[in-house]
């Protein structure tokens, strides 16, 4: 069916972008489709950690992150509060992290163990979802309302974007042609549009996962690592620009960028919605 125009979905106020830069998580408030750059500040400072992936639980308002230096997976309330480590054993290099806010589960990719794992939000009930046909799994995202999981694998020989249901069934390759280094991906919770950034093809692309065809949003970008969506904008982090770049996906145009004072790589990025999108999935009632 037709996708709703992203610029007419009413956006909850009090929403923020969260992104990871070395040992800190920064936040930038969003007002409509604008980054409130002058109000950007560090949310969490954990200088001895190397934070890669970020995910946000819109129910409890907690941020979750992966740390490759531990390695570990931790969380903290965004209204302040001490970080708590929830997973610290049997990890190699945890990179991407995703939350099914309805089923109350976290999912993560591990590029050393070559696995995708799942657990409850507190790290309990941990289980391996996939441990085959993974070479460099990185970005992962859950479409809670639709019950789908998506992830990237930047295996230079055979890069791909895969999908499965949130319980790990119905795994299949969604995209494999014309990819090089698909690093990050995101799903817009309102339109279910899947978008990704590729540091090899230097493109940002989007598709409706239920339909054939994909659309190039921008080309010739520098070195994208992760991406998140909010309203009509997509926000990606860039290793060469050391910046967060905003792209209007309706008109395929960069419209803003934010470069933190400290020059170093920016890794994961996620949208901290002030309220959860409506929806229910089968994992929530199990």
């Amino acid at each position, binding site marked *: 069916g037709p996708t709703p125009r992203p610029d007419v979905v009413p956006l909850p106020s009090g929403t923020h972008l969260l992104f990871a830069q*070395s*040992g800190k998580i920064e936040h930038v408030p969003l007002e409509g489709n604008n980054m409130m750059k002058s109000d950007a500040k560090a949310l969490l*400072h954990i*200088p*001895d950690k*190397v934070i*890669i992936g970020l995910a946000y639980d819109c129910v409890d308002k907690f941020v979750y992150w992966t740390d*490759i*230096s531990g390695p570990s997976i931790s969380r903290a309330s965004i209204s*302040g509060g001490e970080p708590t480590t929830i997973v610290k054993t049997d990890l190699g*290099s945890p*990179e991407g992290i995703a939350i099914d806010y309805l089923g109350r589960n976290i999912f993560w990719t591990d*590029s*050393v163990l070559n696995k995708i794992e799942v657990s409850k939000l507190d790290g309990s009930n941990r289980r391996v979802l996939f441990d085959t046909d993974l070479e*460099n799994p990185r970005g992962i995202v859950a479409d809670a309302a639709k019950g789908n999981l998506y992830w990237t694998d*930047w295996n*230079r020989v055979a890069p791909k974007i895969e999908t499965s249901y949130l319980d790990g069934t119905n795994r299949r390759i969604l995209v494999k042609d014309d990819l090089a*280094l698909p*690093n990050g991906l995101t799903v817009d919770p309102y339109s279910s549009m899947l978008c990704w950034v590729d*540091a*090899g093809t230097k493109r940002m692309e989007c598709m409706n996962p239920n339909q054939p065809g994909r659309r190039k949003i921008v080309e010739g970008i520098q070195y994208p690592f992760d991406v998140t969506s909010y309203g009509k904008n997509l926000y990606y982090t860039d290793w060469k620009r050391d910046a967060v770049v905003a792209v209007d996906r309706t008109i395929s145009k960069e419209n803003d960028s934010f470069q933190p*004072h*400290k*020059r*170093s*790589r920016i*890794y994961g990025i996620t949208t901290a919605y002030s309220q959860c999108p409506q929806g229910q999935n089968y994992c929530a009632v199990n």
Partner: protein
Amino acid sequence: DSTAGTSSDCQPCPCPGGTSCAVVPKTKEVVCTNCPLGTTGKRCELCDDGYFGDPLGENGAPRQCKLCECNNNIDPNAVGNCDRLTGECLKCIYNTGGFYCDRCRDGFFGSALATTPELKCRACNCNPYGTVKGKTTCSGLTGQCECLPNVTERDCSACVPGFYNLLSGRGCEGCNCNAIGSTN
């Protein structure tokens, strides 16, 4: 605290090169906010991901943060390529291994330092029937697998002349042919 009205209200940031710092409101802790390139940490005492060293000399003599040195056997798209303090390479590719990705990893042989990936490290592929205890590792340099008695070839895949039955898994057995009735 610039509001207390004493001469010690504002103090210089304890950061390298006089770079900026901030005070964490809750803990009153001072944190450097603009560490020099490649460094991070509360006092810029750590190296960023992709770099290694010990800029403030917390573990011996100070060493500036340098890019990971892994003999071109790491992928620039990977994260966590080397240990931030020691420089130990953690994500060697092309089947290489060792502290600096300078050797072939177990089960592979060749030259980890060769210029093209195809020339680097190849699988030992030892023949399981001809190899001692079914070992899968070989000499990292020559690729010679450890052969059972009377078994030959790099991968222990053949019997030496005058012997047969490689598939016994115990080494090859003598043919015991009568010298008079045999052609050679």
